[in-house]
């Protein structure tokens, strides 16, 4: 009788312990698989971003070198044609129209190529590219005051991948601010230290409740997250309704 009770109790206890252990093992295995899947997804995303950047670079180069130079040749030839059509008003008008069209096309090609990969970023680095970016936005929208400050420059060369990704993130942030925040001022501050690179972005727009937006990131925000993870940057996004938006990034060299 006592033995029966003890056996039943031992069996029940053994079963519970076995159940707990196997549950934990299965759970750990699931977590491991999930982690691997996440890492794989992150790798895919990084390679996507990398391919995207390479493709942008190639298209920008092709547009500039191939299409752009050929358009310039057409432009020059058109000058020669124009000389010969001075006495024929109809032909002269047609050539003038073509001039306008060609000039527009050359400008558009240059702009697209420039947007795809700013040559300033490629040739002169992040600080010059940000300066240029601010200038271009300032010209396009005078209602917003753009301010850029370089607060430290230790002349340490920065990794091109880091520069390109930070630049893209800045483009995304400015675009978001103008679209949703309606700010009157956007300021960007950059520290190029010997050990670390720091970037701070701030607008005085409408702001939003960060808690409400958690888990509902749009593509733009996802893109920012992926790019920052890719370059192992620490970042913080902060905003409150009516108090604008702040983002800060820190990258150790």
């Amino acid at each position: 009788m006592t033995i029966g009770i003890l056996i039943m109790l031992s069996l029940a206890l053994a079963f519970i312990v076995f159940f707990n252990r196997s549950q934990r093992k299965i759970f750990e295995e699931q977590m491991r698989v999930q982690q691997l899947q996440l890492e794989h997804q992150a790798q895919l995303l990084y390679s996507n971003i990398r391919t995207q950047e390479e493709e942008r670079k190639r298209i920008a180069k092709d547009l500039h070198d191939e299409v752009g130079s050929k358009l310039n040749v057409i432009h020059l030839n058109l000058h020669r044609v124009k000389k010969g059509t001075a006495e024929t008003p109809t032909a002269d008008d047609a050539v003038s129209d073509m001039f306008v069209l060609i000039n527009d096309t050359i400008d558009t090609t240059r702009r697209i190529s420039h947007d795809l990969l700013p040559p300033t970023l490629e040739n002169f680095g992040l600080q010059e590219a940000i300066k240029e970016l601010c200038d271009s936005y300032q010209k396009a929208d005078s209602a917003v005051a753009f301010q850029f400050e370089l607060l430290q420059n230790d002349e340490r060369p920065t990794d091109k991948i880091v520069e390109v990704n930070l630049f893209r993130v800045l483009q995304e942030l400015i675009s978001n601010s103008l679209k949703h925040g309606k700010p009157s001022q956007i300021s960007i501050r950059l520290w190029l230290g010997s050990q670390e690179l720091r970037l701070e972005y701030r607008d005085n727009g409408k702001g939003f409740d960060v808690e409400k937006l958690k888990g509902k990131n749009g593509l733009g925000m996802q893109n920012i997250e992926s790019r920052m993870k890719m370059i192992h940057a620490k970042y913080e996004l902060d905003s409150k309704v009516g108090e604008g938006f702040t983002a800060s990034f820190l990258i150790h060299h």
Partner: protein
Amino acid sequence: MHNISVIISIIAYVVLFLNIVLYLYYLNFKSNRLNWFNTFLILGLITQITALIFTSQKINNLPLLHIYTLLEFIFLSLFYKNILKQEILSKKYFNILIISISISILIILNSIFLQNIYTFNSNAKTLTQVIYICYALTYFFNVTLEKTPIIKFLNSINAAILLYYAGSLFIFMFSNVFFSLSKEHIVFWVVNALLYLIFQLWVFIALWTFRQQTRTKSISL
């Protein structure tokens, strides 16, 4: 020895009362499918209070055990019917409703023809306890891998059910023998009281843990 059993039982019923209150507060209004377990707990308390009244009036309280066994079986079966996955119940293994109705009829027949209401219904108790052990094992073999507070709570409750009913199976199986030799075998009732206290404490810990885990999270039932 009898005093020890009484003291343990009193502590167990105090914990049982706390469990009912906690259960009502944290679970009853959040999920209908878990209400049957609390109904089972309430039944235990009501039966115990009624048994004490009967004893004080010097009335044989064994008929209460017959009613308790039947109702306990119905409530626990309904509880398991709700928490076990539907496909297990209807297709793969068994239909819990048919089993419950059949066993309930057997319990009633046992009380009428085999062990009258003034004797210990060891047959019915043994049969139902074996079924509870089967329910608990079925649950464990088919439990989901989710780690939500409610699943953790159900896992704990099941472990408590398995331990208590497996441990006390032999005690109830031979309860008629103990009744005739009560002094020599009182130690088994102490063991049963102790197991019941452990069962109630286990449920209490499960409810407390559930409370802690759902304080900040919303529950997905």
